């Protein structure tokens, strides 16, 4: 009920933009999954299918000059922040036209023009870097909000606590956005964290404004993160947002892995019923914001954009072998 009211409070343009970004990430990652078995994308890929609402709901509140950083599962964050699609595909194909010229691959996406400030696969390692980037920007007199995206396993790393402590100490404009998908590779949360404490309570223990929400409800993500961004811009310091969600596919790679025994099909199907895309689509249909034929047209437009990006990536040249060591040092 409350949710419907919030939905109704958002203007149509915002709702349509949220939907467009949401379905776009889903379609891009489904294409990656479809193409990956061709063995031409020769780098590890960590798909966020099932978790897209967090990327979109948070980034919709950011300005282009704000900055977002991420970890290994970063495709959604990169795209939601406005990262270039052609450069992303080209990077995954190891091409010189990629967003890091073939040096990084799927685990090291970057788009400075869009304010996507880098991703790395060492769990939690961009969290203090994002905090430092927020501090550096403030020292330079720049008005920027920093967002660190990470999974719940990163809250088990020392640097998470070190960074949250410092961000609160300095009242830095940072959003710590935790996508709690309950698994670190195959290890469930139950073997990694105590059962009498929620993830967000750890950040609250550091004195940080901390909330928990449904990561598969894009409107809830949007609303909670809007409040956090407003706090950051006002100078009220960092926020920690825990969003519960679920990764549909295997930890790394294009396939489903419910058969190997670390989680059940029932659990997966339960989460599939809460698909953030279908759920939002149904809400918008009900509100008559996105009639089915318009959804279909939008999907078609996005598929064409993806066709173009994949063709660009496949037809782009590989880096020259002479570039192997370039950029080891800045000149």
């Amino acid at each position, binding site marked *: 009920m409350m949710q419907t009211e919030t939905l109704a409070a958002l203007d149509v343009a915002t709702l349509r933009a949220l939907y467009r970004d949401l379905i776009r990430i889903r379609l891009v990652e489904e294409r990656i999954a479809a193409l990956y078995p061709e063995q031409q994308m020769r780098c590890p890929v960590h798909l966020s299918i099932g978790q897209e609402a967090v990327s979109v709901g948070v980034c919709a509140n950011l300005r282009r000059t704000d900055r977002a950083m991420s970890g290994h599962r970063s495709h959604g964050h990169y795209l939601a922040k406005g990262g270039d699609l052609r450069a992303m595909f080209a990077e995954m194909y190891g091409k010189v036209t990629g967003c890091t010229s*073939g040096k990084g691959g799927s685990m090291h996406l970057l788009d400075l023009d869009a304010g996507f400030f880098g991703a790395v696969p060492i769990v939690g390692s961009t969290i203090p870097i994002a905090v430092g980037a927020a501090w550096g920007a403030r020292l330079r007199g720049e008005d920027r909000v920093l967002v660190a995206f990470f999974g719940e396993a990163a809250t088990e790393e020392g640097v998470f606590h070190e960074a949250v402590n410092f961000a609160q100490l300095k009242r830095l404009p940072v959003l710590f956005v935790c996508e709690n998908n309950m698994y670190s590779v195959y290890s469930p949360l139950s073997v990694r964290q105590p059962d009498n404490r929620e993830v967000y309570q750890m950040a609250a223990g550091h004195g940080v404004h901390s909330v928990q929400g449904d990561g598969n409800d894009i409107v809830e993500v949007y609303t909670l993160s809007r409040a956090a961004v407003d706090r950051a811009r006002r100078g009220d310091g960092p926020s920690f947002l825990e969003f519960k969600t679920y990764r549909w596919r295997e930890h790394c790679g294009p396939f489903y892995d419910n058969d190997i025994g670390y989680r059940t099909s029932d659990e997966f199907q339960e989460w599939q019923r809460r698909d953030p895309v279908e759920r939002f689509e149904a809400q918008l249909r009900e509100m008559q914001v996105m009639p089915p034929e318009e959804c279909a047209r939008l999907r078609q437009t996005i598929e064409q954009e993806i066709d173009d990006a994949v063709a660009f990536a496949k037809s782009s040249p590989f880096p020259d072998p002479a570039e192997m060591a370039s950029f*080891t040092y800045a000149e």
Partner: protein
Amino acid sequence: MSRDLKFFQALNEATDVCMAKDPTVQIMGLGVPDPKGIFGSTLGLVEKYGPERVSDLPTAENGMTGVAIGAALAGMRPIMTHVRLDFALLSLEQLVNQAAKWHYMFGGRMRVPLVVRMIIGRGWGQGPQHSQSLQSWFAHVPGLKVVMPTTPHDAKGLLISSVEDDNPVIFIEHRWLYNISGPVPEGVYRVPIGKARVMREGTDVTIVAISYMALEALRAAEFLDAHGISAEVIDLRSLRPWDEDAVFQSIRKTGRVVVTDTASKMAGFSGEVLARIAEEGLPLRVPPARVCLPDSPTPTSPALAAHYYPRANDIAKTIERMFGVTVAEIAEPPHPLDIPDPAFTGPF
């Protein structure tokens, strides 16, 4: 204009001139603005530049290194300090995976202009975890630069070069250098990273020395000179990149080489120097030698530590063996062996 300054004063002055000319330079670390000011090397800076640019930090080496990297990526030029290199080991993840890689792995689009100062302790019972010389670990990592100045002149000139460099620079200081004096020019000047300095010219043997061992090498060279052996002493100053040309040129002249490092031999930088000499096929008249630490952790008791650290006499004896001669011993210093000079009264 040059005047005599101590090593720590030279570091302080380098930081001061960098902060005065560039508002993006900041210095941070546990204790930076405290009453001791990193053995005097940061004293007075917070009064001049304020607590944001001269910042104390939580005791969280890895996370705060990430913060420094983030600030550098955002356009600042941070100097980070560790009162002991051993504490900086907590930050290896951020230094090796992040600082060293961001320029490369993002295709040249990101830069990490970061200086990380680390101090190697020695004596007065510093023991296994306050005295490690792990420069070769950092020198092994592409993307990092590693410098180890010996003189006050080079401490200031190399720190300025390091702050101005667009790469992460590991700036390793030896605690026993802090109190030595030497001429230091006023204002801004640079000692280039990657250039060695010939501290003393000689014709019979080349001593390649790293950090504090350069002072022991000089003592050995002066002693040997009185006994008819002319030693050239090269202070390497930079380990990555390092000045192969200066070393090779000297060996072509002398045909003999001793490398002396503040670290142990096993997989240490002294081995890298000898490997490059061998690969270059330089004609050596006698096998090369190394004067380094024993292959054990650092003992704490002064009775043990006295036998742990090699000194000028060990370098001299090594060279005497190369010439098949035996001359007198170099006299031990008149003060206890676990301090650099009588002014040092502990505790660290």
